[in-house]
């Protein structure tokens, strides 16, 4: 067990080093969520009565900020696994596979690095949100929020690593990511309250782990609970999602990398 942790940390260390050295990447990944919060946040500002009808007092932008924080987490982590494909193409993977570290440690190290990077990106978006006037009733809430973002991103990095390990080409990987990312974001109360969704969409949204994460973060940020889902249920759903995804990713990764690329 100790060795697995040490080995996972080795991979984690490498991934973070690479992230740190690519400063342009940090900025590029911020552009899309920044556009969402600044542009879409202002375009929809007139929808405030809709938000108020379900019990929110503040501005629309405060309502949708948690959605954009999670959007950042979703996209940073779901793209994060792509370097698995590069690693296999350019030999780093074979180097790791012929060293004594275990296969699952490689997957776990990658996932933890991706989730931390996603959380860092999300925290930059929180900074932007604060800068354009979003307020936290209780600033200490940022700690549990970051915890949730890290955990949630770990689950999504699991999806990413699973897809990257099975995909044989960049094209397949990006196709799958696009197929998953946007719908999961749209089928959640990120932009509008759950109560305003048509019934059938609300059912679909309730099957989506993104929904629970956004509700939870929104409740911690604004203090308004929505959709009648208790905090414990949301936390439970997120935990179950993360455990399942990390498990699947480790299993699939170990199985796939043993085949020639």
């Amino acid at each position, binding site marked *: 067990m100790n*060795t697995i942790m*040490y*080995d996972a940390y*080795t991979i984690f*260390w*490498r991934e973070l*080093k*690479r992230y740190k*050295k*690519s400063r342009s990447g940090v900025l590029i990944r911020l552009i899309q969520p920044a556009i969402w919060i600044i542009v879409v946040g202002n375009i929809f500002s007139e929808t405030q009565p809709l938000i108020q009808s379900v019990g929110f007092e503040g501005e629309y932008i405060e309502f949708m900020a948690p959605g954009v924080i999670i959007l950042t987490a979703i996209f940073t982590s779901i793209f994060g696994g792509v370097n698995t494909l590069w690693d296999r193409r*350019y*030999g*780093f993977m*074979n*180097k*790791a*596979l*012929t*060293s*004594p*570290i275990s296969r699952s440690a490689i997957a776990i190290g990658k996932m933890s690095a991706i989730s931390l990077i996603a959380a860092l990106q999300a925290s930059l978006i929180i900074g932007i949100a604060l800068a354009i006037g979003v307020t936290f009733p209780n600033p200490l809430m940022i700690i549990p929020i970051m915890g949730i973002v890290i955990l949630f991103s770990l689950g999504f990095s699991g999806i990413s690593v699973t897809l990257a390990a099975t995909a*044989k080409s960049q094209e397949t990987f990006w196709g799958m990511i696009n197929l998953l990312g946007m719908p999961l974001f749209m089928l959640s109360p990120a932009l509008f309250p759950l109560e305003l969704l048509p019934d059938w969409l609300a059912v679909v949204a309730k099957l989506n782990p993104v929904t629970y994460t956004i509700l939870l973060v929104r409740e911690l940020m604004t203090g308004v609970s929505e959709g009648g889902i208790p905090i414990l249920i949301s936390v439970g759903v997120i935990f179950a999602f993360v455990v399942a995804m990390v498990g699947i990713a480790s299993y699939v990764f170990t199985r796939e990398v043993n*085949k*020639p690329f």
Partner: protein
Amino acid sequence: MYSIETKSLTKSFGDLVAVNDISFSVEKGEIFGFLGPNGAGKSTTMMIFTTLLKPTNGNASVGGFDVIKNPKQVRENIGFVQQETTVDEYLSGRENLLLQAKLNHIPKNEINPRIDEVLDLIELSDKQHEAVVTYSGGMRKRLDIAGGLLHHPKVLFLDEPTVGLDIQTRRKIWQYIKKIHIQFDMTIFLTTHYMEEADNLCDRIGIMDHGKIQVIDTPQNMKNDLGNEIISLVIDNTENFDSFLVELKKIQFIKKINEDNSKLTLFTSNGTEVIPQIFQISSNLGIKINSISLTQPTLDDVFISYTGHEIRDDNSKYNRRHEHAKMKRLRQ
């Protein structure tokens, strides 16, 4: 004690037999060169030795451990330097080695001295803190080789260590390989396409083709076996060609004849006496000789004599369905 030992090793992908029942062993401390045309099965064999592939049949042990039963122990005892450079461009030279040290479980207090040691060996100490992206191809290769040495493996695998490098760098890499061999007392198993490289570095050479080992010997013995001289001749007409061949084979010093259309290559031990006899035969049969030359054999000639002239995998038409099926099998 053998460093690598393999018996009836076979690897097939569907009906494609990449490695066909090979058995050989590499002695401890030996530099063993593995040669063969593209698609001969060298890479597959190396992937089995480095635990990246499981054999279909037969067994192999590396550094005293079975590659199927104890892959982890094998991995602890090997260094693998791949054909493509695998260093991380964004990391510095030293960080790359640090990563390699951690991957190979080198004890914490030994990591820094070992990194200093190999940096010194490959003469990269002064560039160690610069990002690898600024390194030349040769420097990257040296760094890759250094990474394979850090944990002092019993067996070092080098897959075409000098492919794509200029002559100066190639010679420099040879020097490093020789230095490593002496300093760390390692068994080195390398594949190469350069006969000069094999001749220069290797104690013994194995030539592989069509999934089989065709011959294993020292470079010197291989050259001697061909005779110490080669006569190449180009003839004008192909009339009486067959009887010409028959007559040539009767000359006692000729050990082997390779024919390629109108070009003949004769391996002989006494060229100066053979040439007049060739002229005698050709004038009797009315065959005109366009040119004739007498040379010393190189390892290139040995290679060609075992593997033939035709170019591999480029001469058959690309068959999409066939390739697809092959890739699918590879992935299973």
